[in-house]
């Protein structure tokens, strides 16, 4: 768990400015910020434990990605890739030649459909887009040695603790 309640007050003292600084952290780590923004971010990170943690996490993630990609590139055999791409392009070119008359007919049909749809849009009110159903979700549970389970029922999430089952 990444949250330490004992630091909540401490974090609250410096939370002003976090929302402005967080989007810039990645760019700051990549050294892509101008001098003014860079100084602003650096000053905030020095004072704010939460943003300092975030910055450390970003840096660790970036490093892990770099190492992972380098390992893959070093071990991967890419010699067949060029041949495969060229072969695929050739197949597509032949298909295009064969399908030209069909494509022309389809273009006419699409144009007609477009005109029809355009007329419909012109004469009828726009359809309402249904909002997505948003539900509660459990991201992580630590039962601290007890038994328990998580259940999703409709929009409601349920965490069930079997009290007294700790070993």
């Amino acid at each position: 768990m990444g949250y330490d309640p004992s630091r909540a007050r401490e974090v609250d003292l410096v939370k002003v400015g976090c929302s402005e600084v967080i989007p810039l952290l990645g760019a700051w780590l990549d050294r892509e910020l101008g001098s003014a923004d860079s100084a602003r971010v650096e000053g905030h990170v020095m004072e704010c434990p939460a943003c300092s943690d975030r910055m450390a996490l970003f840096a660790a993630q970036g490093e892990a990605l770099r190492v992972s990609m380098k390992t893959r590139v070093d071990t991967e055999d890419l010699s067949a890739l060029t041949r495969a791409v060229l072969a695929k392009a050739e197949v597509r070119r032949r298909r295009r030649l064969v399908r030209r008359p069909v494509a022309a007919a389809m273009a006419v049909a699409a144009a007609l459909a477009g005109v029809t749809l355009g007329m419909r849009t012109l004469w009828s009110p726009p359809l309402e887009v249904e909002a997505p159903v948003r539900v509660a979700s459990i991201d992580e549970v630590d039962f601290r040695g007890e038994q328990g389970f998580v259940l999703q029922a409709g929009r409601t999430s349920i965490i069930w603790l079997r009290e007294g089952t700790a070993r």
Partner: protein
Amino acid sequence: MIPLLILAAGIVGVGTAADPAADVPVVRATIRAVAATRNEAPNDPRLSPIASSLDDFGKDFRYRGYRLVGAESFALGWRISGEMELPGRRSVTIAPLHLTPDGRVKMHLMLHGAHPEHATKMETDFSLPEGATVFVGGMRLGDATSDSGEVLLVGVTIDRIPARPPIRATDLNANGRPPPEEPALPPAAPAPRPARVK
């Protein structure tokens, strides 16, 4: 009379202008401690705000009656925790962590055991949209010797999610990065000399 009215209007005006709570981005959440029983019992009308969530709960668990034992509402800043005492000398702590990209609130919850140890019995992170509820249940209501057959159900409902802070157009480009600094203007070209007339 008129000076009094002016004074009152001034006080109201100052109060409105200086109200710092109006702009503070707080998450409003309510914790409800509910006693659930398997016996047929009329539902507590005070539980009407979470009636649909209790219906969802009742589809999978064989509890038929619900009674509100306690409720507390909180207005919490990010990573500020609120605590509520529960029956059986337990307590629960919640803290909003951050807004998720889809507009929900990620919350942290800790359930503490009975006095005097108050050991953490369970800890969880969950994401909630406005109006939705998460239940933590399974604890016996009261102490181990009581035989009421009721189970404690702790419901956490998000009543209000603060608006996402606006990002100024000049701060970030479409790729999420700040725009590059504007290059310095080239030095002004010297004024053309008037042509000599021979």
